[in-house]
């Protein structure tokens, strides 16, 4: 191999070292930011009646924020276990699509796939797809997925513990307005998804359906039935796309 080619190679390696450092720094940043709402989750969960252990099991084993908040929210509102489970799993269904996008990039099997699946969440997927796979065959993208997934997992779990222990030390949640923290958490989770008129229409219709049904059904069931709005919206969106094309 010529000296020139060797020089180009080490240039490339230097660039990769810099890129790698940037990716890891971003991953830590996202982990810390996510940790901030891990604290709220821990606090809301024990305020809603779950134990510190149950709260921690959710963060370690379920590890998908929206679903964790939903399960705790429905149970805290006096909803049945089944509607809490159904709402939580429906919310987690989007992770299947993240997995679909990540599988060809990661190309892992066996135990590594099982771990990759657990780390497949909003943040790790977003950081991975933000990296181009054109120039390096996906090396940076894969690192972004693993680094972000592990970083968020670590900080999310530490923050959950801090939040749950902190809230167990407090008294009546109403005094601190912690019951108002639950809807605030949900609106903050949905906010980035309310991008256009269609998403607002879906969201407000679902809210209306849930409120109209509330007096007639057991807590938790109205929220679950509001998913019908998503089905209708999905069917309409596909039909409109067909008419448009």
């Amino acid at each position, binding site marked *: 191999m010529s000296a020139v080619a060797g020089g180009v190679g080490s240039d490339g390696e230097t660039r990769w070292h810099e890129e790698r450092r940037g990716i890891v720094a971003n991953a830590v940043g996202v982990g810390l930011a996510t940790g901030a709402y891990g604290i709220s989750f821990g606090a809301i969960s024990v305020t809603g009646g779950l134990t510190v252990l*149950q709260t921690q099991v959710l963060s370690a084993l379920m590890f998908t924020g929206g679903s964790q908040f939903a399960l705790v929210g429905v149970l805290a509102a006096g909803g049945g276990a089944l509607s809490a*489970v159904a*709402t939580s799993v429906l919310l*987690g269904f989007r992770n299947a*699509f993240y997995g679909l996008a990540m599988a060809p990039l990661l190309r892992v099997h066996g135990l590594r796939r099982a771990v990759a699946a657990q780390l497949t969440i909003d943040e790790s997927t977003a950081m991975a797809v933000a990296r181009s796979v054109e120039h390096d065959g996906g090396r940076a993208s894969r690192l972004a997925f693993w680094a972000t997934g592990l970083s968020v997992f670590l900080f999310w779990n530490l923050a959950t513990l801090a939040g749950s222990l902190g809230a167990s030390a407090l008294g009546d949640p109403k005094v601190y307005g912690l019951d108002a923290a639950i809807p*605030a958490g949900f609106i903050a989770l949905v906010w980035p998804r309310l991008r256009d008129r269609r998403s607002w229409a879906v969201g*407000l219709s679902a809210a209306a359906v849930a409120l109209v049904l509330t007096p007639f059904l057991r807590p938790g069931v109205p929220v679950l039935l509001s998913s019908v709005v998503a089905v209708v919206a999905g069917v309409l969106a596909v039909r409109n796309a067909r008419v448009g094309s």
Partner: protein
Amino acid sequence: MSATWWAVLLATAGCYAAKLGGHSVPQRVLDRPIVRAISDALPIALLMALVAVQTFAVGQTLVLDARVAGLGAAIVALLLRAPFLVVVVVAAATAAVFRHLGWAV
């Protein structure tokens, strides 16, 4: 085992199945426009329904209490691009202040 534990473990299993399913099933099973469109709308519908119920419901009764003020404060914080923890703390503090001053129950 309590109903809460069952709920925690069942929901955890379901959520993990969704994650693993995405990594394991053939592309064509999930990658259909209708499945994708519904799946895009699902989080919006469920989260907004949860916002509504958690703000206005006590059991099966609809009420107006300090949580509404908390939600209003949360929306203002979001419009000001506040981070998640700030949004939640602002909402809780607003509700607590409204109750303390006797403006709401």
